[in-house]
């Protein structure tokens, strides 16, 4: 198993801590003097430019949230003059303004570096053809993978999202070996390969690097079986840098966080207290080296836990569990916490259906209602009413017994559901609070 930058990826923890502390001190000083918004926040908390003696002192610092980015739209939190910014990305907000991020030349170098680590840990190298089906543009997915792929010397195919027929043709003709896209789109492609009767032996795919949305172990199994590849989970968010924040190695046992660039903490999302190793909570990142948009204790809303200690691959970087879901995605239905990924997991265990669904949440007469629309799979459709009703009932029973809440299940025609080629839009929350 290759390691792109063994010096940093396999560093002793004490030495790593020293580097983190030194770099954090520089970052905090820079932010204090260059970003008035942060300076005020720090002053309010009784902190100065030299208040950090050790990386652990970060817990004294105030959090940064998506709202802070919105309040300073578009460039208010940038820590360098605009003349130093060479790239701008933005993520569309479902509500209000987009979140804008800016990169200096050195940030782009850092990003390429962490993406080179990501791709190398997934098993890719200069002989690979990397098929980037993430969207290019304001979204960080496409260009992030692109720069990392070029850095390791692979042949990058910048297909971007959409146009599935062309994707398949290029994949076949060019001999793509590594597929990079969202896990939802990977499943979509797997189905398209079946539907178009493409012989899997004509494809050279061996690995997939999938991220940008939470996905379950069941979904991983399904993708690996259908595409005959190893499916690697990669993690990132544009506010921190984009993809490249963390990635699984080929052992698929947790995602290694690039700790020399991003400092992770796990907090209790309610009390905001830092939680000890092994406890599940909200992941918080402080960027250690970012110049354009450094962020202190940025609340990702992602729920996970951290495991320190050396991995069998040789890396010493802390590992985070595969995300269960964003705390933003978490639905509270009549007081019960529910992640769409849990529903997906249950559906994947049933062979009679494909995991294509949409959840509709509503509030009728002050009571939360949950409706699940599931597509009827042609392979199972046998034209008997009773059989379909039995299936519907079975799905409903499986969900209710596992999740402990009642769900109204409806069978729908295939492909009538939002089949996104980017992030999946599987929840439609119609509740008006």
């Amino acid at each position, binding site marked *: 198993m290759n390691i792109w930058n063994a010096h940093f990826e396999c560093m002793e923890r004490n030495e790593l801590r020293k580097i983190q502390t030194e770099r954090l001190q520089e970052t905090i000083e820079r932010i204090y003097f260059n970003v008035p918004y942060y300076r005020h926040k720090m002053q309010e908390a009784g902190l100065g430019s030299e208040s950090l003696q050790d990386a652990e002192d970060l817990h004294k610092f105030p959090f940064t949230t998506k709202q802070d980015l919105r309040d300073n739209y578009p460039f208010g939190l940038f820590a360098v003059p605009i003349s130093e910014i060479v790239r701008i990305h933005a993520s569309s907000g479902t509500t209000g303004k987009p979140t804008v991020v800016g990169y200096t030349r050195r940030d782009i170098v850092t990003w390429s570096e962490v993406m080179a680590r990501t791709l190398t840990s997934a098993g890719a190298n200069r002989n690979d053809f990397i098929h980037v089906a993430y969207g290019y543009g304001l979204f960080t997915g496409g260009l992030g993978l692109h720069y990392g792929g070029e850095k390791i010397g692979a042949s990058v195919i910048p297909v971007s999202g959409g146009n599935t027929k062309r994707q398949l043709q290029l994949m076949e003709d060019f001999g793509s070996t590594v597929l990079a896209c969202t896990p939802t789109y990977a499943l979509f492609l797997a189905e398209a390969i079946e539907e178009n009767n493409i012989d899997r032996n004509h494809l050279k795919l061996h690995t997939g690097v999938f991220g940008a949305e939470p996905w379950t172990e069941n979904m991983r199994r399904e993708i690996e079986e259908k595409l005959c590849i190893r499916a690697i989970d990669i993690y990132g968010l544009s506010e921190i840098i984009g993809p490249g924040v963390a990635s699984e190695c080929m052992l698929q046992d947790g995602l290694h966080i690039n700790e020399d660039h991003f400092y992770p903490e796990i907090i209790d999302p309610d009390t905001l207290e830092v939680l000890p190793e092994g406890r599940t909570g909200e992941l918080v990142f402080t960027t250690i080296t970012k110049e354009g948009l450094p962020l202190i204790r940025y609340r990702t809303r992602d729920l996970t836990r951290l495991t320190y200690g050396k991995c069998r691959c040789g890396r010493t970087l802390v590992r985070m569990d595969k995300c269960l879901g964003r705390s933003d995605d978490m639905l509270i239905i009549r007081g019960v916490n529910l992640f769409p990924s849990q529903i997906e997991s249950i559906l994947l265990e049933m062979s009679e259906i494909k995991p294509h669904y949409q959840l509709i949440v509503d509030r009728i007469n002050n009571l939360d209602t949950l409706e699940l629309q599931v597509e*009827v*799979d*042609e392979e199972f*459709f*046998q*034209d*008997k*009413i009773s059989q*379909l*009703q039995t299936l519907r009932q079975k799905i409903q029973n499986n969900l209710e017994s596992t999740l402990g809440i009642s769900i109204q299940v*409806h*069978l*729908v*025609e*295939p*492909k*009538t559901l939002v089949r996104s080629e980017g992030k999946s839009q599987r929840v439609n929350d119609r509740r008006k609070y």
Partner: protein
Amino acid sequence: MIIHQLSVFLENKAGRLTEVLDALGKEHIKITALSIADTSEFGILRMLVSDPDKSRQILKERSFTVNITEVISIMTPNEAQYYAKALKILSDLDISIEYTYAFSIGQKSIVVMRCSNNELAIKALKEHEMELVRASDLYKI
């Protein structure tokens, strides 16, 4: 004697049946018989068409869930006793009928049935001199 019937899963949504018929009509598919079984939320459209395989492909391309199911069909004078007779022959042999529908042309009725065992049903009906309809004849009606 086995007839290939086209079955389509339909949500109870306005316009879906029209879409099916439009799509088949554009490709000059002839429909001999059509029936819909429905519940409050979904329905199953069953049709005897001139080219079941082609029809299936046409609908598949339009993202319908389609399947071809095997049914049998008999032609009787259009009086209830003949229909009753056929049902009795089958029930005497413990062959159950999953569903059935019928239509008449002039003095004759065409009865379509999906039985728990189509082969056995064909044999029994023949033995009782009931007139079985061939697929090729049916599409010419």
